[in-house]
């Protein structure tokens, strides 16, 4: 028989206002096995903890029940308290009488009754608790960063700086991500390439960083400290080691009509290409969808002109495995597709562009060499209309419910740059709200209005009609209470941003959770913002939510700090609450193996003694406690009830249910 102590917490008035704590401790004192029961104002305070420790010694307690807040809050606290007083931490149970009781009830009588029931259940469980000891598992001192944009690069640089090996897996032929396409950055207007490309070179030259460009994560196995990842290196038909990046092949390739994705299809490139001059690695890639040689076997020009002999039309996708202690997701974002927003005539007129396309049209390395020209006729536009919130803050299924956060600032930047470079241009910005929280952000926006004379109009554009070489813009001016008709030369749409399309399948591979918008969920929205709830998975940049560059870099470094903290350890303490099969009951049906999301269950043939001194060979389940995460799926799947979770055995759960239903 256990000797159990019950400690009821008031949590100031949080619990005591709706639960009669005195009555709870008195009633629970009558439960079998309870030798001591009390209540106290703040059980988690030092005085409260000392009271628990003293009672353990005084009454020779073997088990402890704390009736307080959620175990997520203070289970670890009370377990440590009891461990110091000589009790195994797994002999402590928390009855959650705050979140699940006092906070949701108004009637004190009802709340008190429920608190007593919850306390009884915890006592019933403690009776069946056994001391558990956690094992350890080694940590592989290498990190994987998925995505090589500014987020992934910063995370990798910081981890490498602490002395750990880092691999960057990037699906594009070059690292750099969206920032490579951006012209200037707000609020300082410094050139994006000037601050990004040195970082790309740093990453490439760092001995600890290994860049796998044009590669993707194929599969992920294992667990925190010991992930086993298969990486697919897609065939680029060019030997990365031999290619010198001279670019001769990209000039001689006869296939000239390939939409240049780096410039968002605003101009064309060849079938063999280097995305842009500062690409890292600076290696050519053949676009298999357009290459005549790969499609019909006739051509081979690039192979002939390549002095390094780097072209290899026979190259195949390669797969390789690598072990990692931690994985950082940095998959970034994309602007949404605008096919549902035809009121803005995006598909009808080339002069209606997205903001990212506008970046390319303003960029010195873009299709127009940095001179702002209308895509339709190459003329200089005199009236430009910017439309904000295209697909952001949308209450129907057309767009996204959230604010994309970066659009107000980049639109102010675009408007300002237009007025600065071309003072003869009339610039209108239509907005719902201008949102500029951030250091020097509002000052920046005000400069656009006050110094640069950008016309900011509160209201939305209803329709854009391409007619007679102009874009006829119909809009509302909500503050002026009038309809506006503007004949514009260009319309720029601030499209909402959404997570990259690879994020959802990757989340499945990582068993990392996502929200309804496909942004990765953090372990705690305020207190653990760079970790995924899945141990060992960290979040960097816009894959977790819309972010501008400064915020992305801050989060990238924060994620790196968390990874370094993990990789510094030689061993990790495992969760002792793992599954355990009862071999005598197991019939080897494989049900548990099929449901195990971590691959922790295997089968072995074992000898058993049969009747009349015979031996039987039987196939039975075996759990690797280092891999098992204690999710309990197998215990439910097992048809013969052979699988049990330590600390949450079927017997323990049933005892709790019985106590509640008593």
């Amino acid at each position, binding site marked *: 028989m256990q000797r159990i102590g019950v400690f009821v917490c008031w949590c100031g008035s949080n619990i005591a206002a709706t639960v009669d704590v005195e009555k709870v401790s008195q009633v629970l004192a009558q439960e079998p096995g309870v030798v001591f029961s009390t209540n106290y104002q703040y059980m988690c305070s030092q005085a409260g903890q000392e009271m628990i420790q003293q009672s353990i010694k005084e009454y020779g307690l073997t088990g402890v029940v704390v009736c307080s807040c959620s175990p997520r809050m203070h289970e670890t606290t009370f377990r440590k308290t009891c461990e110091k007083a000589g009790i195994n931490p797994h002999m402590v149970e928390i009855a959650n009488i705050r979140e699940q009781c006092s906070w949701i009830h108004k009637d004190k009588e009802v709340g008190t009754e429920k608190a007593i029931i919850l306390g009884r259940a915890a006592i019933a469980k403690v009776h069946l608790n056994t001391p558990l000891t956690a094992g350890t598992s080694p940590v592989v001192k290498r990190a994987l960063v998925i995505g090589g944009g500014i987020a992934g690069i910063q995370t990798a640089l910081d981890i490498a700086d602490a002395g750990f090996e880092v691999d960057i897996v990037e699906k594009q032929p070059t690292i750099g991500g969206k920032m490579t396409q951006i012209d200037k950055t707000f609020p300082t207007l410094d050139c994006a390439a000037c601050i990004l490309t040195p970082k790309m070179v740093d990453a490439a030259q760092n001995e600890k960083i290994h860049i796998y460009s044009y590669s993707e994560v194929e599969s992920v196995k294992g667990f925190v400290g010991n992930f086993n990842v298969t990486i697919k290196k897609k065939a680029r038909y060019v030997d990365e080691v031999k290619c010198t990046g001279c670019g001769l092949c990209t000039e001689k390739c006869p296939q000239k009509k390939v939409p240049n994705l780096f410039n968002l299809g605003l101009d064309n490139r060849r079938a063999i290409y280097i995305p842009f001059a500062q690409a890292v690695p600076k290696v050519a890639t053949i676009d298999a969808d357009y290459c005549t040689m790969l499609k019909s076997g006739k051509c081979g020009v690039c192979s002939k002109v390549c002095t390094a002999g780097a072209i290899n039309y026979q190259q195949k996708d390669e797969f390789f495995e690598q072990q990692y202690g931690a994985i950082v997701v940095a998959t970034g974002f994309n602007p949404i597709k605008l096919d549902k927003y*035809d009121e803005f005539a995006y598909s009808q007129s080339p002069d209606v562009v997205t903001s990212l396309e506008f970046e390319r049209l303003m960029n010195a390395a873009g299709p127009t060499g940095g001179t702002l020209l209308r895509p339709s006729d190459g003329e200089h536009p005199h009236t430009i209309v910017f439309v904000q919130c295209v697909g952001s803050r949308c209450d129907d299924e057309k767009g996204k419910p959230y604010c994309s956060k970066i659009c107000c600032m980049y639109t102010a930047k675009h408007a300002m740059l237009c007025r600065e470079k071309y003072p003869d241009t009339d610039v209108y910005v239509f907005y719902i709200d201008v949102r500029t929280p951030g250091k020097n952000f509002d000052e920046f926006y005000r400069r656009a209005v006050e110094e640069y004379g950008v016309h900011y109009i509160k209201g939305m554009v209803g329709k854009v009609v391409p*007619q007679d070489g102009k874009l006829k813009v119909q809009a509302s001016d909500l503050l002026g209470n009038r309809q506006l008709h503007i004949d514009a030369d260009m319309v720029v749409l601030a499209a909402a941003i959404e997570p990259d399309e690879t994020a959802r399948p990757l989340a499945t591979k990582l068993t990392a959770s996502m929200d309804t918008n496909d942004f990765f969920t953090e372990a705690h929205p305020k207190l653990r913002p760079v970790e995924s709830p899945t141990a060992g998975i960290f979040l960097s940049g816009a894959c977790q939510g819309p972010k501008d560059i400064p915020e992305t870099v801050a989060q990238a470094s924060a994620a790196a700090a968390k990874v370094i903290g993990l990789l510094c350890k030689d061993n990790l303490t495992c969760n002792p609450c793992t599954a355990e099969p009862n071999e005598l009951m197991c019939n080897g049906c494989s049900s548990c193996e099929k449901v195990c999301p971590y691959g922790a269950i295997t089968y072995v043939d074992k000898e058993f003694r049969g009747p009349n001194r015979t031996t039987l060979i039987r196939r039975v389940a075996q759990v690797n406690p280092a891999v098992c995460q204690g999710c309990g799926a197998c215990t439910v799947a097992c048809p013969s009830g052979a699988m049990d979770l330590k600390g949450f055995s079927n017997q323990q759960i049933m005892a709790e249910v019985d106590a509640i239903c008593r």
Partner: protein
Amino acid sequence: MTYSYFPGCTLKTKGKDLDRYARISATALGFELDEIPQWQCCGAVYPMSKDEIGTRLSSVRALISAKEQGRELVTLCSACHHVIKRVNGDVRNDEQIRDKVNRYLKLDDAYSGETNVLHYLEVLRDRIGFAALKEKVTNPLTGMKIGAYYGCLLLRPGKEMGFDNPENPTILEDFIRAVGADPVIYAKRNECCGGYCTIENRNYAKKQVDGIMENAKAQGAQMLITACPLCMYNLKENATDGLEVKYFTELLAQALGLKEE
């Protein structure tokens, strides 16, 4: 296949062509439109106030009639379709409206939105199929550049009408292709024609119509087609220098070789 049919008041007076050509084309395409007995006005304008019940009752009577016949209800006039379809959605989804409607009508058999409301165009697209329609065309309108004019009521609100993408519709363009002509896409094809203010503010309606015509002409349209009698009136009467406007059913009958010259 026989459908219950609600023609609506305009189709018996100003919009006879819309109705007549629809009926003969239906027979040729192998479906029948059976006019529901003793139908009355659809209610004319969908009431925006939640507790307005009288207007809704008119539509509900037509819906019940179709339910009793055990058929789907087909409409033609954009306005009727708009009102009937939305009222049916109300009865289906709004408990209060459903309750009130049933109390007013004192029905033995409660109505809760069982009838499926279809526009004639939906029958062509989803039941006959534009590909099958194309095969039945004997007199293809080859070379004609036709602009589809949707107006406001047929498509919106997109969620409730469930008809087509309100900002980038395709159903009429697909129809134009099926009868052998070339659709002309122009931005103002789903703008309001100003029909509702033609009495109160004729100049405004004129401005709207001229804008639509100008836009359609600029994109190369030689003719407009519509499904709405109100748009038809407005586009014809209020245009300064307008294009020819026809009901889509007239075009259909013409392509099927049913139109007497």
